[in-house]
């Protein structure tokens, strides 16, 4: 049926003629149609993410920055996603601070401090004893290792695996330590010209036999009265010192090792005899070992004590000597000047005119002459290989070995817990912590040794923590650092213009600190981020 093209149109009641509906409705000829339009328009306005208002930033001398800005009010139902970049000097890093919002402001505090770096302090002495080690750094004493008798001096008997300060609350208060020496179970030091000891009683020189875990003053009531102590050395249960050019010893006196002509232990210092070889000589250094002691006077070495292996060096090698005898100079030492002397346990060594010499027990190669033979008179340590062309400046004898510093490097021979036994010097490993360092002093104990080379590096037995690296791991070949971070021998430091606070560094007023703060809501960000400097507000 054909349709008439007159539609009754329902557009809000108005009639309109439509010949066909757009949008593809199929029609044949004319049809009735209608159109409706929803009266109200649908409207959408996209948000405008505005810039952060009223930004502010400041920082304190302690290195804490405070940053804030007006909280964006656009679309509060959508949390802003902030991006914060901090630039300190030339270094920029994105940070993720904890934001707080209060009273229409958003902000954060930022810890600008950095962990301080550590560097070794000026270590002037290092001494390895039987089971523990001590050192002097910036005039203060530090010890680590076994502490059964309080030989660490920290007021406890707890073993320490890292360098631990010797107590300064007592007799050492306010004093500067200039020398230190570790023996079998006791430690002695020189501070402000006086001698102090701690550890096993009977060898402390204070007149008693009481063990002490803190330093006690060596008696000055007797022979040391009014004298200034300049050098000290502790051996096995006895100690010797130099005061006003003379040698004094105290403790066990087996084999006459106190050098006073007797064999009775003394709990206070006694003078080493000057009626014999040392008559008229000025003693400048002293060394106490296992059963012997030696002194340096006027460029020559003098020793006393057990001489069964020839350790006294006078060529006898058959008995003991309770008074000093001159080490022979008609052989290897002829024409030399002795500058250093050390006493081991059955052997002794010296540095003379830049070369090393040893005498006494040699079964472990500890004389360094390429043999395993005892020598009753000094023999030259081999310079055929490792020491060739080098100048020896320091030397120390242990139980069964010897170590020396030559031309800034460390060498050892004998049984030194370093590697396979060698009767000639071998160099200490310098591929590790000693790489690039210059050795200045060395000390060897029965089972471990340490070298001072800007750092303090130790090797050997570590069962008592005597390597000072915080572990109990034995290090036979590679020395490890003793207390490398914040354990007495090291000190924190900061870069220039940064301020040290304990172990943290804070940027000083000349260090630029700035922030760049951007934010987005659902990925939309303002036209520009906020960039501002954190002004210094410290004093």
């Amino acid at each position, binding site marked *: *049926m054909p*349709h*008439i093209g*007159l*539609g*009754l*149109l*329902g557009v*809000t009641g108005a009639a309109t003629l*439509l010949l066909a*509906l*757009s*949008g*593809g*409705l*199929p*029609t*044949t000829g004319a*049809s*009735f*149609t*209608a*159109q*409706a*339009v*929803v*009266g*109200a*328009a*649908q*409207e*959408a*306005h*996209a*948000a*405008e*993410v505005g810039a952060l208002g009223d930004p502010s930033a400041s920082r304190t001398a302690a290195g804490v920055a405070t940053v804030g800005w007006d909280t964006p009010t*656009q*679309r509060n139902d*959508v949390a802003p996603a902030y991006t914060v970049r901090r630039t300190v000097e030339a270094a920029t890093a994105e940070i993720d601070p904890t934001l707080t919002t209060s009273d229409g402001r958003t902000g954060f505090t930022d810890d600008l401090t950095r962990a301080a770096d550590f560097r070794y302090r000026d270590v002037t002495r290092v001494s390895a004893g039987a089971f523990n080690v001590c050192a002097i750094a910036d005039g203060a004493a530090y010890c680590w290792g076994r502490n059964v008798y309080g030989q660490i001096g920290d007021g406890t008997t707890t073993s320490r695996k890292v360098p631990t300060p010797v107590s300064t609350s007592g007799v050492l208060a306010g004093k500067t330590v200039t020398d230190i020496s570790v023996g079998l179970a006791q430690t002695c030091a020189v501070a402000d010209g006086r001698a102090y000891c701690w550890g096993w009683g009977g060898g402390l020189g204070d007149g008693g036999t009481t063990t002490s875990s803190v330093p006690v003053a060596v008696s000055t009531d007797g022979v040391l009265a009014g004298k200034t102590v300049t050098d000290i050395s502790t051996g096995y249960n006895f100690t010797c010192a130099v005061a006003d050019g003379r040698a004094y010893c105290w403790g066990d006196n087996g084999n006459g090792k106190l050098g006073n002509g007797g064999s009775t232990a003394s709990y206070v210092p006694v003078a080493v005899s000057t009626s014999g070889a040392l008559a008229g000589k000025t003693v400048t250094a002293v060394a106490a070992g296992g059963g012997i002691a030696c002194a340096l006077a006027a460029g020559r070495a003098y020793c006393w004590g057990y001489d069964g292996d020839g350790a006294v060096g006078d060529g006898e090698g058959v008995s003991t000597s309770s008074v000093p005898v001159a080490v022979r100079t008609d052989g290897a030492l002829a024409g030399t000047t002795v500058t250093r002397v050390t006493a081991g346990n059955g052997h002794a060594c010296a540095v003379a005119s830049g070369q090393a010499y040893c005498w006494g027990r040699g079964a472990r190669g500890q004389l360094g002459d390429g043999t395993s033979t005892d020598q009753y008179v000094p023999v030259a340590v081999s310079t055929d290989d490792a020491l060739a062309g080098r100048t020896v400046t320091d030397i120390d004898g242990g139980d069964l070995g010897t170590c020396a510093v030559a031309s800034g490097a460390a060498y050892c021979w004998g049984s030194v817990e370093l590697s396979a036994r060698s009767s000639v010097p071998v160099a200490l490993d310098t591929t590790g912590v000693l790489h690039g360092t210059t050795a200045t002093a060395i000390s060897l104990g029965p089972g471990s040794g340490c070298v001072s080379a800007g750092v303090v590096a130790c090797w050997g037995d570590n069962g008592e923590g005597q390597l000072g690296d915080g572990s109990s791991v034995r290090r036979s070949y590679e020395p490890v650092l003793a207390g490398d971070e914040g354990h007495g021998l090291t000190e924190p430091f900061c870069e220039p213009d940064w301020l040290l606070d304990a172990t943290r560094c804070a940027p000083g007023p000349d260090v630029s600190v700035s922030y760049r703060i951007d934010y987005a*809501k*659902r*990925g*939309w*960000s303002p036209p520009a981020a906020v960039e501002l400097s954190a002004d210094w507000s410290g004093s």
Partner: protein
Amino acid sequence: MSVTDQPAPPAPAGARHAHGLTRRRKIVVAGVGVAAAAALVAGGIAVTGAYFTSQATVSGQSVGTATVAITAGTATSSAPISAASLLPGDSESTTIDLANTGSEDVYYTIRLPKTAGGDTALESAIQVEVAVGAASETRSLTAWQAGALQIGPALAAAGGQTMTVTISLPTTADNTLQGLDAGFTAQIDAIQARNTTAPTAGWVAD
């Protein structure tokens, strides 16, 4: 037919010879002896002289046309979309009630003409979904200008239908769209369903 027994009025002069039938009727009437005179009988019967005539009227016959009418408005439970601060990921909806107020079932299409003054970039980005029953179509507002959504089932006379319109800003909307505006209306075109080939539902491009 009703018959009125009244004398017929004189026939108009011009009518007497106007048709040959008049003469024959005259003879027949005379032949049957009916005493009546009529000059003209309505309906085209010509009489000469007076006749008895009669007229019957059949009443109640009428002719009327169907109506096609549709209305559309925001549902009372809803409100027109008025998004003041759209962010990427946002969406808003409104519900529109359609009503067939005509007498015929209708087929209908939906268009979304944009309003003047909108920003082209936002119109291109914003997505508009129209859902009517089982049918739905989602396109950018710009794309909606090029066609209409054809609804398949007819809307019965006096029937109603709910339509949902949802706008959304994609999460990928560009930062440059900030602060722009867009607007549109909804337009429904209806056509009688009777005698119209059933349409194919879906998007129909112009």
